[in-house]
């Protein structure tokens, strides 16, 4: 009993609990439909037309489709923590980096190629580098010019996608080279995006564990003035966080572009900044900045995807899905809110008191 109690006090308890709740809905649905109860977790193999064996299943789908938001959530967590603001440009920046990458690979004005104009790696690195530049631009506005994060990132939120469209000469640029699809398809039997996300998460986790980056970011986020007096270069740290956020957006953008082997600038990363922000919040992180928990944000990201996948599994039409998604999000946010937490705490205290009285 005491073990359970100490478990519920952990910050990650509620995010994990929410995730389990979403999975439970799947189990109940499957039972109701007469499917095997654990079909959500079932992973099957399938042989593709090209003869490769790949894994598939709802769980794999959640991990695969949730990759972009999970990658974005890393950068967003840092930005929220250090600057008590959100970077709403990440969706547009994703589209921009994908656009530049495809434009370089296909050549300006060309909409359909079957071989690269420049080596693949150049396209990818250029796309990601541009995203980092965007991040630095955002960071500069926030950290050095003291512009509110929402306003500062609003610039690229609106301009990023448009610039991407200009780069692609207002068309969808298709790069029909198999190696370009690698990042968005399969690496062996696993979807590559899962590996990319896992790598990003792993690197970030290692950096946070073995360096003091986390302390630097949080100190600045909690009390910028005090952090400065204690020798931190607050502005530089905030700038770095935005740059990392841009980097994440770049990587996510390349993955998203690779999935559809084309730069569909109008649609890549559309509204994804909101999912990334939601992931941070679902992870139990305060959007007011300060302390953060990366694992929470990552779980939050996959929870969002799990909700979407579940809704499709439930055969909810894509027009109705946002409504159900909203309901689930409300539930999750409410159980994590302070008054509800306090209520449950009081309830358990009363129970304990009653037990003692007996």
């Amino acid at each position, binding site marked *: 009993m005491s073990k359970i109690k100490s478990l519920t006090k952990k910050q990650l308890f509620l995010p994990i609990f929410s995730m389990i709740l979403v999975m439970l809905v799947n189990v109940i649905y499957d039972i109701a439909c007469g499917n095997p109860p654990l079909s959500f977790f079932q992973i099957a193999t399938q042989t593709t037309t090209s003869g490769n064996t790949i894994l598939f299943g709802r769980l794999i789908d959640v991990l695969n489709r949730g990759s972009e938001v999970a990658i974005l959530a890393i950068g967003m967590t840092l930005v929220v923590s250090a600057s008590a603001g959100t970077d709403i440009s990440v969706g547009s920046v994703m589209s921009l980096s994908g656009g530049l990458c495809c434009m370089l690979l296909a050549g300006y004005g060309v909409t359909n190629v079957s071989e690269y104009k420049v080596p693949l790696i150049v396209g990818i690195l250029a796309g990601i580098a541009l995203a980092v530049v965007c991040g630095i631009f955002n960071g500069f506005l926030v950290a050095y010019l003291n512009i509110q994060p929402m306003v500062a990132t609003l610039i690229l939120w609106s301009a990023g996608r448009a610039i991407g469209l200009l780069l692609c000469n207002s068309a969808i640029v298709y790069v029909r080279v198999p190696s370009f699809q690698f990042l968005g398809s399969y690496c062996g039997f696993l979807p590559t995006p899962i590996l990319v996300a896992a790598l990003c998460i792993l690197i970030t986790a290692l950096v946070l564990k073995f360096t003091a980056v986390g302390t630097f970011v949080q100190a600045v986020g*909690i009390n910028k003035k005090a952090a*400065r007096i*204690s020798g931190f*270069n607050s502005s530089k740290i905030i700038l770095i966080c935005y740059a990392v956020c841009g980097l994440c957006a770049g990587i996510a953008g390349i993955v998203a572009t690779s999935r559809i082997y084309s730069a569909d600038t109008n649609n890549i990363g559309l509204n994804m900044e909101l999912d990334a922000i939601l992931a941070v919040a679902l992870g139990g992180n305060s959007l007011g900045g300060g302390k953060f928990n990366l694992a929470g944000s990552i779980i939050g990201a996959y929870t969002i995807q799990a909700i979407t996948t579940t809704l499709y599994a439930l055969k909810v039409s894509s027009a109705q899905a946002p409504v159900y998604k909203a309901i689930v999000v409300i539930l999750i946010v409410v159980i994590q809110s302070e008054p509800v937490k306090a209520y449950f705490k009081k309830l358990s205290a009363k129970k304990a008191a009653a037990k003692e009285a007996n």
Partner: protein
Amino acid sequence: MDSNIALTMRGICMTFPGVKALDNVDFTLKKGEIRALMGENGAGKSTLIKCLTGVNKFEAGEIHVDGIEGPIINKDTMDAQKKGISTVYQEVNLCPNLSVAENLYIGREPLTKIGTVNRRKMNQMAAQLMKDLDLDIDVTQNLEEYSLALQQMIAIARAVDMESKVLILDEPTSSLDDNEVEKLFGMMRRLRDQGVGIIFVTHFLEQVYAVCDGITVLRNGTLVGEYSVEELPRVKLVAAMMGKDFDDLASIKPEGINDFSKVPLEIEAKGLSHPGTIKPFDLDIHKGEVVGLTGLLGSGRSELARVIYGADKAHTGTLKVDGKEVKIKAPIDAMNLGMGLLPDDRKAEGIIGDMSVRENIVLAMQAKQGMFKKIPMAKQIEIADKFIDMLQIKTASRETLIKQLSGGNQQKVILARWLATEPDFLILDEPTRGIDIGTKTEIQKLVIKLAEEGKSVIFISSEIEEMLRTCNRMAVLRDGMKVGEIGMEEMTQEGVMHAIAGGDHHE
């Protein structure tokens, strides 16, 4: 309830995780009485007040207020205000980005017929209130335009204006200079004569005797006793607070070196200035010397130190540290030269509230090491434990969040943060503000010990007595300018006062 009583609290109990903050505490306040609530850090003064105002939920006990039947439990400070209990806290809790008038009437703005805020009337009322209290303030300006001291006065004005039966002043004087304190006392006496009961929390003993009628003493969360001022002279009061006999504070100053002329210089500032805060000044500090900066609040004493440290960037002048000319662009540069600054505004510039005591202690060390060289956890724990033990920081554990500690203990943590960096030159700006007598003495002793180890210290304090005990030399500031220095031989209470006041007394 006796019709003469404004407030009674009976058997109040309250626990924080791991600490019994209040144990069966009683408190009585008569109408038209100013009662001092005294005790060391962590004695439970702030907690008791927070129980009264509804900030903390107490576990047992009863509160009765004049004019209300039966025991009351306040849900929050708004609720307490409605029942006639107003509070001014140690740190100003107003909104810096609102105007003075808005701050005064927030939550009870005068309305127009259609229900919008009647700004003109609000500003008129505010201006009248300021005039009544003899404060020269433009009520349409944002609060942040005014000094901390004036903000404090505005906070008090707000509380006073709310027709309170019980007014709580939690360390209201810690950021005020003597003149302002006198004004506040005038305000308090006037309110007392109108029948308001005032609870006055302070660390300044002389103020207790200047203005109070009664004294209630707490120690370690329990009530020591309720006394009238006559029956509890200073020495007995200190003894009651500390639970032991008064260790004479005056005798801590050692008979060390008084002539520093042959000792090498640690700091040599020539013509340093920062526009708007401090005019060009020269200042030499020898190794092992404690130099006090004195002057009225706003005279530039904090600002001078901040320029040396790089908290405010110097616009003119040169700085030599240990004989070498240096450029300090930001605090980290100063830290790498062996400096440390304990700022006067603990809440705004000192603590990282949501971090633990351990994280706060190793913070500056970590900043010096850089982002990528993390101090190993075992080392962090060792350092934190060493300083918690050395400075006797009262905390449930080293992982407790610093914001849960009492003000004095927070200050000790910040002090530990700098001591951990093993500085050669430490700037202490009001290190003892809001700290109890016992800890004050400890900090003063620590300063002298640091100096004996050859470290240089700038010591800034509003309490002249404290400066006299610790400093070897004092620099005097007036209106943003260094106007002179006082050597050991002129360092008496009177001499310093004259130097601060300047002008007339010589003629």
